[in-house]
Each structure stands twice: as C-alpha cells, then as structure tokens.
C-alpha cells in the first residue's frame, strides 16, 4: 500500500529574523550565520542564548538573529562574553568574530578567555582580510596576497606568517573544543555545522572554552566572483589552515550529532 507526502527538506531557520542581510552577494558570513541559527534551533536554545557581535562586517549580526544580542568593541567580544557568562552562567553565550577582530586587536581577549577556560562558544570567521574597512591585511592574510595595506603582497619578512589561531588556542589547557572547518562547498558546510553543534554542546556541558574557526570568503575585497572566492578558500586557504580537530574534550568524542 503506497502513499506520497510532501516533506520540507530545508527551510530558513527560526532563529533568523526576516531581514535581508547587508553582506555582499555570496559572502559566507551568511552561511556561517545560517549554520549557527540552525544549531540553535536544533538545540532549542534561542530563548536562552545571548550573542555577542564584533566590529567587522558582521557588526550588524544582531539584526539577523532572532535572539538577545549585544555589540562589542573591536576585538573585545570575548571579554564582553565573559562579563555576561559570569553573571548568567545558565545562559548560552557565544561570540561571532572576524580575523581582524579576534586574531589582531582581540588577541589578548581571546587568549585569556581560553586560558580561563571561559565557558563560552566562539565562532571565528577567518576570511584572511579586513572586510569592513575595505580589504587591509589581516594576521591571517596568505603569504604574497595583495591587500590595500600590503599592496605588493604580504611580505613574510616584514609582516610574518599567517597566524593559525586554532593551533595556538589548542595549546591552552582551558580549551574544551577547538576545531577548524571550511565553508567552501556543501560537504564542508555540513561538517562545519556539526562542529558548531559540538561547540555549543561543549558549552552546555560546561566543558570550557570552545571555538570553531571557519575558513570563509570575501569576494568583494578579494575581487573575485562568489564561486571563485569559494574555490580560493578550498584551493589556497585550506593548505595554509589545515582543517581538523585541534582539541576535543573526551566527553564530546562519544557524542553523535
């Protein structure tokens, strides 16, 4: 006996507002937002979550998530999140930060949030550039990459090598879940979502600091089409920023999501 039903394979997450984002077409900030919203939906955390927006292209993140949000000073999101989490330990607190925000001006705050084992989740968007201010060099900018502040291409002699935050933060005892994922195609996006899920699970279980570094695109400042930008992530960024699990608290390993 046979019957057909219509199922919805995918729809816009509930934790999203119905606002058109200001991101450039094809910018994977949107993808990252969506994954976070989906995870929060799945875990049913929307009403208890407090997001901390950075200064960067995602400065207006609070307009797109249907939940309580604050807007931090440039680089200080982890400090602000700490201030919140310590007085509201029962709430879920996450920061969303770019690479200039987290790896440059915010280096001390992210390091010490991890060192304290602050029980927060950090979504780290590594797009190898300063988007909002128009394409200056980030600590994550690839060697030789031309930016508006490295017009001849990043010179290792003068500016050093691209900084690998996942590797560095995994050195810190306090961290509970530190991984790097990429957003350059559907398969990797699915893996990225799993990681974000685990990061929030880590927080819920009080396992300490969790961060998901997401290799992301900036078609506008890379001066590429959306698809070219994703290809660049896959072909050029992944080799410099190896994907993988850098620190996983044993309590999470069993977990299937």
């Amino acid at each position, binding site marked *: 006996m046979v019957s057909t039903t219509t199922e919805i394979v995918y729809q816009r997450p509930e934790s999203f507002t119905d606002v058109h984002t*200001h991101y*450039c*077409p094809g910018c994977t900030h949107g993808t990252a937002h969506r994954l976070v919203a989906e995870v929060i939906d799945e875990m049913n955390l929307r009403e208890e979550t407090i997001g901390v927006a950075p200064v960067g292209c995602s400065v207006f993140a609070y307009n797109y998530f249907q939940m309580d949000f604050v807007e931090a000073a440039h680089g200080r999101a982890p400090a602000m999140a700490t201030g919140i989490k310590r007085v509201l330990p029962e709430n879920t607190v996450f920061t969303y930060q770019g690479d200039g925000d987290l790896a440059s001006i915010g280096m001390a705050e992210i390091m010490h949030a991890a060192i304290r084992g602050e029980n927060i989740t950090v979504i780290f968007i590594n797009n190898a550039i300063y988007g*909002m201010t128009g394409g200056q060099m980030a600590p994550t900018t690839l060697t030789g990459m031309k930016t508006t502040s490295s017009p001849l291409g990043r010179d290792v002699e003068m500016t050093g090598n691209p900084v690998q935050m996942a590797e560095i933060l995994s050195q810190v005892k306090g961290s509970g879940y530190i991984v790097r994922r990429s957003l350059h195609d559907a398969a990797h996006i699915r893996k990225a979502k799993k990681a974000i899920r685990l990061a929030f699970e880590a927080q819920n279980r009080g396992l300490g600091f969790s961060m998901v570094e997401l290799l992301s695109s900036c078609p*506008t400042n890379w001066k590429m089409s959306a698809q070219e930008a994703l290809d660049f992530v896959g072909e050029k960024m992944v080799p410099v920023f190896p994907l993988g699990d850098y620190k996983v608290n044993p309590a999470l390993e069993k977990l299937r999501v």
Partner: protein
Amino acid sequence: MEETSIIISGFGGQGTLFAGQVLAYTALDNGFEVTWIPSYGPEMRGGTAHCTVIVSEEPIGSPLVRHPDIVLAMNLPSVDKYESVMPEGGALIANSSLVNREIERENIDSLLIPANEIAETIGMSRLGNMVMIGAMIKIRPLFSLEMTQESLKSHIPERHQKTLPLNFEALEKGYKFAEEEFSAIKV
C-alpha cells in the same frame, strides 16, 4: 560664474564618483576652485553612491549643499531623492535606462537620457556616466566639451588609457543627445 553645485548619484558601480572627479579635474585645469566629496561608508557596499562637486571662482566654504544646482541621477532612487530639493531653475538629468518615470517638476530644466543604451551602442555599458556628463556640459556649459576631454585625457588612470577614445565618444554622444533632445525649461 558664481558657485555651482553638482550632485551625481546612482548605484555603486555606475561610476558616479569618477564622473564627479572628471568634472573636478576639468574645473581645476581651467583655474576654478573646486571641491569633490563622496558619500562613504557601509552604504557604498551594494547600495547607492553619490558625490557632491562644487565649482566656483571664489574659495569654497561648505563642500556640501542642501539644494544642488545640477543633479545627474543615474537611477530611480536618485531622482526620487533629489527632484524635490532642487532650486528653481536647477537642471536634473536622469538616466532613463533605469528611471522609468517622468520628471514632475516644471520649474527646473530636465532631461531624460538612456545613458546605458547609448553606452552599449559604443560597446562599453560602463560608460553611462560619461554619457551623462556629456549631456550635462551641453545643458549647463560650465566647460566646453573639449576642455572636458582634455582633462579626462590627462587624468584618466594609466590602466584605462586605452579606453580613452570610447570615453570621448561617450561624452560626445551624451552631448549630442542633449543638443537634439533638450528643450529648455518648460515654464
């Protein structure tokens, strides 16, 4: 000539800022005082971009104006925004390729010009901005066509030198279109 204020407004990517700079360079090369000031910041991304150019024989005070004497509107939002604030006797030139309505004000000079289409006839759709400039200097002859072409030639970035002839052609086509189509103020 006393102070003249020009606003060039359109979508990002329509070359409004460069068009304004062409006017500014021409003013400079011909001994006028001039200021050029863009809109800047997030609204640039995707959204609209405009600049204000002021040309004068006197030192210029405010680089910004509330009531622009001349407006080059390269899209509909720009017409909607500026038509109402222009002073009586102002000149509004609108890009009919993207502006699908008439100009209502009767106490200003106005011209609808299909800048994109004209540019495409030259084979370079991005040159709609030059077409608009061409039309403008016909209707409000701050400078001659030749003066404008001279300045364009001497200030266009190296990498675009090769497109100079096309730019000239765009200016001329705009100028001609205005010559033929423009009938002075209606009232």
